């Protein structure tokens, strides 16, 4: 499957570099420069004449790309924790930017009525961190008759590398009917222009298997509280793994919508509809059960703290 190969290629060549750069605190991707102009030093050179020549000496001598200021240039060498008039370190001011926060997001707690049978699904995560770095414990569960049939649990470290984008690394543990699988996870999630929430994650395991999941959703406000959310998800696998219930390549896709009512932005019941398709070799696994192509009606709840 070409998409998967793309992921695999990207991961072996670019992602470690990307990861290194990000963990070193370098902003790799630049989001919109407001004028749509490339943010090259040339541009700043061209406009340097507009600065009226009034910048202090210490700012013009920076070893920076021309035109970009050193944010510490005005400090005169002072720091907050030392020098005249400073308080002892234990009494210094600390604001919320140095605090950690926690949250719980239950994206989908729902019952799904398929052609053949009903089952329940949960998807959500808990997080701990700040604006740029978070630990995320994420889970997707599917159960019927009070028995969990499939679960996918991920522990991810998420780090911002651009205004709207995070890199995520961690591990995933799948538990199915008969089998369980362990994966390393490497993904990107964020907000694309036009407010599309997207995430793409590649998975690898020590036995040399690979997989990928891509998700996208969008909030369309019908009123201030009635929101239509189209959503699509696709799973890919590098190899056929009949015991775990999937073939090679694109194995499963979900497309549909949820119509939710935001009583407030934290609590929203919804109804929805999704088409779940199995693809390629995976059809062979599900066709005998008549489940390779399903329409499902959904009712559920989104809430978070």
């Amino acid at each position, binding site marked *: 499957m070409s998409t998967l190969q793309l992921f695999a290629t990207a991961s072996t060549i670019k992602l470690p570099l990307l990861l290194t750069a990000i963990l070193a605190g370098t902003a790799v991707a630049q989001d919109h420069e407001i004028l749509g102009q490339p943010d090259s030093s040339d541009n700043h050179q061209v406009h340097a004449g507009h600065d009226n020549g009034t910048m202090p000496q210490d700012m013009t001598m920076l070893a920076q790309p021309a035109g970009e200021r050193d944010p510490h240039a005005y400090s*005169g060498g002072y720091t907050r924790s030392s020098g005249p008039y400073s308080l002892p370190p234990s009494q210094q001011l600390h604001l919320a930017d140095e605090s950690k926060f926690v949250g719980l997001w239950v994206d989908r707690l729902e019952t799904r009525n398929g052609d053949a049978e009903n089952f329940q699904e949960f998807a959500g995560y808990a997080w701990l961190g700040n604006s740029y770095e978070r630990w995320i414990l994420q889970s997707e569960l599917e159960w019927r008759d009070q028995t969990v049939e499939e679960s996918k649990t991920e522990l991810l470290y998420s780090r911002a590398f651009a205004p709207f984008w995070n890199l995520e690394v961690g591990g995933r543990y799948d538990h199915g009917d008969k089998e369980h699988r362990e994966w390393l996870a490497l993904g990107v999630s964020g907000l694309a222009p036009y407010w599309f929430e997207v995430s793409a994650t590649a998975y690898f395991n020590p036995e040399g298997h690979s997989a990928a999941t891509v998700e996208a959703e969008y909030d369309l406000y019908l009123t201030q509280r009635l929101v239509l959310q189209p959503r699509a998800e696709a799973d890919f696998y590098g190899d056929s793994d009949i015991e775990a219930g999937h073939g090679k390549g694109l194995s499963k896709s979900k497309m549909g919508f949820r119509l939710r009512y935001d009583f407030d932005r934290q609590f929203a019941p919804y109804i929805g509809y999704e088409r779940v398709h199995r693809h390629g070799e995976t059809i062979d696994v599900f066709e005998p059960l008549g489940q390779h192509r399903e329409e499902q009606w959904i009712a559920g709840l989104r809430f978070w703290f």
Partner: protein
Amino acid sequence: MKNRHSRAVRTMAPTGAESLQSRRQFVQGLIGGGLLSGTLGTSQLVRALEAPVQGNNTQELRGKVFNLTIEERAVNFTGRPRMATAINGSIPGPTLRWREGDEVTINVTNRLRETTSIHWHGIILPFQMDGVPGISYPGIRPGETFQYRFTVQQSGTFWYHSHSGFQEMTGMYGAIIVEPAADSRIQADRSHVLVLSEWTDEDPLYVFQKLKTMGHLYNFNQPTLPGLLEDIANEGLQAAVGRRDMFNMMRMKPTDLADLSAETLTYLMNGLTPNGNSTHLFEKGQRVRLRVINAAGNTFFDMRIPDLPLTVVHVDGIDVEPVTVDEFRLGPGETYDVVVTPTEDAYTIFAETMERTGFARGTLATQPGLTAPVPAQRQVQWLSMQDMMGNMSAMDREMTGMDHGEMNMANMPAVQARHARSEFGPSTDMRVDFPRTNLDDPGVGLRETARRVLTLSDLRSLDGEIDPRAPEREIELHLTGNMERYSWSIDGLEYGKSTPVHFRHGEKLRVHLHNDTMMTHPMHLHGMWSDLEDVDGNFLTRRHTLPVQPAQRVSFSVTADALGRWAWHCHLLLHMDAGMFREVIVT
């Protein structure tokens, strides 16, 4: 509480326009509002509530020695009892009346379970008395009494508030009136203090945490599909989509005017909800001075008194050349004194919030119990291209060589921003390369109106420029943020990652505050005045809190005459705590 309940409060009949409003009605509060009578435990509280001052429940203290006690109090503004942080048992705290030239002593006793502080907003004093925990002093620990002592060198309208965590949002603020040593230049027969503020039933820290998850949590003025269809029908497809395109590309909301809204806030005037109707008395023909203080944590108010022109005479504690307007906008931290000459029996004092979800309301009346019609709320206006892109004519000239005639910007000088290198990362979701410098812009929501609206360019200090030297140097700081991550910073660096800004003692320097966000930030420099200048560098007036509009650059001079370490921050409390904050060191 007793005297407030015994006063007749007539129920307000909704006006036609109001009842037709399709928008959600925000919580207008209980008739009484305020402190629960069940908690009348101390004689102090009873005194505070029974003091018949200025037609509201605020006590006034005068003299040279003041004792303030910070304590938790039960309140009920919305029908749900909550705990608040009160000063001497009242919200707002007592109005402190000082006299210019006096040495005042204020003993502040902390009866909370956490550290507290009081900052004297706009007052020039030694840095150890400034009341910022972690910068001026360690703060006032539980059970402790801290003694503030300083000589009052100025006169006018000021205020005080907690500088610890979110205590200000839970009720810790009050007015300061400093009487001039000589006669006042402002002639008035009586004066009233109007403290505008806000209340949330939620824990402000939880509000902050939720914004970290969803920056638009409280915005119920989102662009909608029916709105798009309506615009397509009215303006055509291209115009309707074009208007949205830039916002959508940038992942910005055109109605992102405030982080909080009436979804969680109830707006107060002198501690009373709109239904509580803070009432202020006058006699017909009197000149009445209204000292308006925005003590809200997060809300810009657009203040007007229908049918009554407002003559602005005093701004941020500085006498200004009188300018008569119908409406003015004030952000958290700013103060405006206006003189009015009412001739009817009752007027509504209407302070509508900038994001148009609610209002604070009071009444100016010849006797208690009278009311006037409450105006309908206006629809929210979208941010415009100039709020996103700054000086578009300069941008066009630079980019395409074309001149962009519209929006009165053709003559605006092209100023090129110098971004800090730390703005090119996750902390900064937009950058403006060519800021607008139009101080005559009243701001979003007030632009297309027949009313006279005050702008920064209208302000002229009566005393002129105090320090006539030319600035020795210039510094440029960029106000930055990321709404999706709910992170606010300066030059892309939150306070925790920042170094101080150093002013050399005695120097005069020029500061350019450049706004790389789509929100208006009221920037408050402690300890020293911000001498506002027009685009040509001419002095306008002294300010302690300067609002900087989206994509705007505001320039001012500072005479660095105050040794020590000082705070400099956005006075939107949540932005401040998120890190839009710098320490200033003067040596």
